[in-house]
């Protein structure tokens, strides 16, 4: 067991989050005045009284931005501060720096903003009706769809709505900026993407990146919500810091955080599936329509990942995937764990679930029959070969270990003998592509310093947000250098140490940064091996040691052919220093052989796939819609795990976060686009009472990955999609109300209300004469 490197600090209260950092008396508190209208012209802003309030040091509008008024990450279509028109609620209009939050709030009350409301697009349905596309549609296709449907004995069509999801990191968005000499500024930001935060601060301040230093020690949860959103808070904080030349901190209140920041994209998807009597899919057409919100942000990349996961784990010979992102007047939606994958997988899993009910077969059987095969039928719609397919191994093991067949019979018996409680069960797979689909982002840097006392400081470009990246980096360093963990420390992520990093996202943190660290260590080891060979030559007679035979292990460095030739790591380091050997190196890594042609919708976007499977059993109270997960069995593929405790923690956590999205996390807006549930009293994420009563999680063992750091696999996002087993188990229980003779109405999240309405409809259908 190697626990999380910060575990002791977390549990004693010594772990320093940004809000815990010691600050000078000089600190000012930043406060954001944001738009209260979804779409409106700004007629007048009057802050003349507010600025006179004692304790208010600065009030800024877009006019005071010294650089460019822009904070969009890739497409530069998102203003840092509103100019004459607001296009969603939550956009920054003014920034206040004051002695305290209380004074800033008092100042806000003295500000008058006059709006002229304009027509707003607040739902994906109205965006589709107006065809308000964000960017041209995307397409991936294979085979002959029309013929595919003609050749299919059965066709099912449908529409599926999947809801938004709030990230609900426990540490709300925060940034602390400290002015330096001249143009210099240092930002402590809770960001998943320090280099982009650096670039955007530089842009808005009209300075260059060399003068902006961004540091991230640890993040109190992110889940994609701090991949681009953190840039906004940092940019606002930097503007106030620059204007006042004093340290400024912005730490959003929970309600403001939920109102201002984007969510997981809502999707409205249409699908048509053609299949034969056996349930084998011959043709599938899907239109994925997403609500991008008011700006591009990462919406196109999210849509792309959705399209690349429309197949989930299934081989479909004739397929057409259309993706459209629509611009609306909602806060710009952003990355969230799964990054579009969950929204598309929900659709194909729904189609399969319907096929099963239509053919009166078990959905497990339909899934199994349609899995990608090993030897043939193993090419994805976008042309990537599905190598190292783990689907059959996972399925066979899980069906057995979960006792699926016996429990299915027991559930059928239970449902026959219980009128008001119904049970349901489902097995669902996930196949998740690992790599940024924007290929150039698949790069990382590291800087490893060995000090004269033999201790090691590792810098890398990834951010630690609870996922255990730094713990994994420690292990990689320990294994590569053959020294104990206590001699190694991972430094806070800092843009002055590692430049031009990619976001810690796409589950790729340890894949990319782990390799970069390894490469840095290889460089130092090469120098040390050369040196030690020379030392051995001076010390020992006979044949010379060879550089490639030098091994670093158990705090010693030795010749594997002549093991008595050895030196302690510490002694070697000390001698190497005295002999002018450099003990520091950068490392760099880029994922090999990947690329994706967006125009053609073809290529090899992913380095590999991570797989997982889950069986969940639920019970539903058909009079209230109340439901409970009775048991979940998960078998997940993390390759040769870098840390079993951490990887299982990710599987559990991802699954639980997924169950929230598919059950209780229902985001509501009023008819003017105001978020109605902007605090935990009305927005319900899973609590300790919502976890499965019986929860069995295993990692697939004995299946190492190829060509990755220590044969491991990424594990951050894929388990979230295992929550579809819960979602479809609930649907199975609803279906049992009508003896599986009627297709239940269903959407995501399946709140108690959705469940109850669906059950009522089935009961009505049952009463209708045939």
């Amino acid at each position, binding site marked *: *067991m190697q626990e999380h490197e910060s575990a002791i600090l*977390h*549990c004693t209260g010594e772990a320093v989050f940004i809000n815990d950092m010691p600050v000078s008396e000089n600190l000012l508190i930043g406060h954001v005045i944001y738009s209260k209208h979804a779409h409106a012209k700004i007629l007048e802003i009057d802050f003349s009284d507010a600025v006179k309030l004692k304790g208010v040091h600065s009030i800024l509008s877009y006019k005071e931005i010294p650089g460019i008024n822009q904070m969009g990450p890739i497409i530069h279509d998102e203003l840092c501060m509103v100019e004459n028109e607001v296009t969603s609620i939550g956009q920054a209009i003014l920034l206040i720096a004051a002695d305290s939050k209380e004074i800033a709030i008092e100042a806000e009350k003295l500000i008058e903003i006059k709006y002229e409301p304009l027509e707003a697009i607040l739902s994906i349905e109205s965006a589709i009706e107006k065809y308000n596309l964000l960017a041209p549609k995307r397409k991936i296709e294979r085979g002959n769809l029309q013929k595919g449907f003609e050749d299919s004995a059965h066709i099912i069509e449908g529409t599926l709505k999947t809801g938004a999801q709030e990230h609900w990191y426990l540490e709300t968005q925060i940034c602390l900026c400290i002015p330096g000499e001249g143009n210099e500024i240092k930002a402590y930001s809770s960001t998943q993407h320090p280099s982009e935060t650096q670039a955007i601060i530089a842009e808005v301040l009209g300075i260059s990146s060399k003068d902006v230093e961004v540091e991230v020690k640890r993040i109190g949860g992110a889940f994609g919500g701090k991949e681009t959103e953190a840039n906004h808070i940092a940019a606002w904080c930097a503007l106030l810091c620059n204007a006042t030349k004093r340290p400024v901190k912005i730490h959003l209140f929970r309600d403001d955080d939920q109102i201002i920041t984007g969510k997981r994209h809502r999707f409205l998807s249409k699908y048509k599936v053609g299949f034969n009597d056996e349930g084998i899919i011959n043709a599938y057409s899907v239109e994925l329509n997403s609500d991008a919100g008011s700006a591009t942000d990462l919406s196109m990349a999210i849509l792309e990942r959705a399209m690349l996961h429309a197949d989930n784990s299934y081989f479909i010979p004739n397929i057409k995937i259309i993706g459209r992102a629509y611009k609306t007047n909602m806060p710009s939606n952003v990355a969230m764990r799964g990054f579009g994958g969950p929204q598309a997988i929900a659709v194909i899993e729904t189609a399969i679930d319907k096929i099963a009910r239509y053919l009166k077969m078990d959905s497990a059987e339909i899934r199994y029959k349609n899995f990608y095969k090993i030897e043939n039928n193993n090419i994805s719609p976008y042309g990537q070969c599905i190598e190292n397919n783990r689907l059959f191994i996972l399925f066979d093991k899980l069906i057995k270990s979960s006792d699926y067949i016996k429990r299915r019979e027991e559930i059928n018996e239970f449902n026959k003998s219980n009128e008001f409680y119904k049970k349901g069960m489902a097995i669902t797979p996930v196949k998740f592509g690992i790599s940024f689909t924007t290929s150039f982002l698949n790069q990382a840097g590291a800087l490893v310093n060995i000090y004269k006392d033999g201790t090691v400081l590792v810098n890398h470009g990834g951010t630690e947000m609870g996922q255990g990246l730094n713990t994994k980096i420690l292990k990689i360093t320990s294994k590569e250098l053959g020294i104990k963990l206590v001699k190694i420390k991972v430094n806070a992520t800092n843009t002055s140490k590692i430049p031009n990093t990619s976001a810690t996202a796409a589950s790729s943190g340890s894949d990319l940064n782990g390799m970069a660290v390894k490469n840095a260590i290889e460089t130092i080891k090469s120098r040390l091996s050369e040196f030690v060979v020379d030392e051995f030559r001076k010390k020992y007679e006979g044949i010379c040691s060879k550089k490639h035979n030098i091994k670093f292990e158990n705090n010693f460095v030795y010749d594997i052919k002549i093991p008595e030739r050895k030196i302690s790591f510490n002694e070697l380091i000390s001698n190497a220093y005295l002999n002018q050997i450099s003990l520091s190196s950068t490392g760099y890594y880029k994922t090999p052989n990947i690329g994706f042609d967006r125009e053609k919708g073809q290529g090899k976007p992913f380095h590999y796939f991570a797989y997982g499977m889950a069986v969940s059993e639920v019970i539903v109270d058909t009079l209230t819609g109340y439901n409970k997960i009775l048991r979940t069995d998960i078998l997940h593929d993390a390759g040769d795990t870098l840390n079993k405790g*951490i990887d299982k923690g990710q599987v*559990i956590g991802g699954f*639980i976060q997924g169950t929230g999205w598919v059950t209780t996390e229902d985001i509501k807006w009023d008819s003017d686009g105001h978020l109605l549930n902007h605090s935990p009293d009305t927005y319900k994420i899973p609590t300790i009472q919502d976890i499965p009563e019986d929860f069995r999680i295993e990692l697939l063992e004995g299946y190492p990955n190829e060509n990755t750091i220590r044969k491991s696999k990424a594990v951050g996002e894929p388990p979230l999609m295992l929550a579809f087993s819960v979602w479809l188990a609930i649907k199975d229980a609803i279906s049992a109300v009508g003896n599986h003779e009627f297709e239940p109405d269903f959407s995501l999240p399946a709140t108690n209300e959705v469940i109850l309405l669906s059950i009522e409809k089935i009961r009505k259908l049952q009463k209708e004469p045939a």
Partner: protein
Amino acid sequence: MAILNLSINKKKYSVDVDPSTPLLWVIRDTIGLKGTKFGCGEGFCGCCTVHINGEAAFSCSTAVKDAVNKEITTLEGMQEKPLRKIIDAWLEQEVSQCGYCQPGQIMSAASLLLKNPKPTDDQIETAMTGNLCRCGTYTRIKKAIHKVIAEGGIK
């Protein structure tokens, strides 16, 4: 503003603050104990949990004046055995991920175990349901609490 006398982790403090100030701000900003976190400010997430006379309380929604002349315990006051056993169980069960909610989780668990040395699963869930964790560490929290119970509790 008023001078208020507080006892935190058995140490006496005299603070000059507005009596309606949330206890959380006084603990964090006036006294400087940073282990207790701000999560929602509304008493719904549990990050700010402390003990007031042994009872778990949300310090973000407790006015400092209501904690005067009472014994306040924060995570920093949990470092000695037997209370420390909770932290040790947390480490052994590898509970923490991002770590931000864990101070509150530990304080709620401690309050439960002080009152009820052998809680059932249902009692654990009821006592801990006010402490949210978005990393989803709940299964391990339950295991850690059971571990403390198995080792004789914290009394």
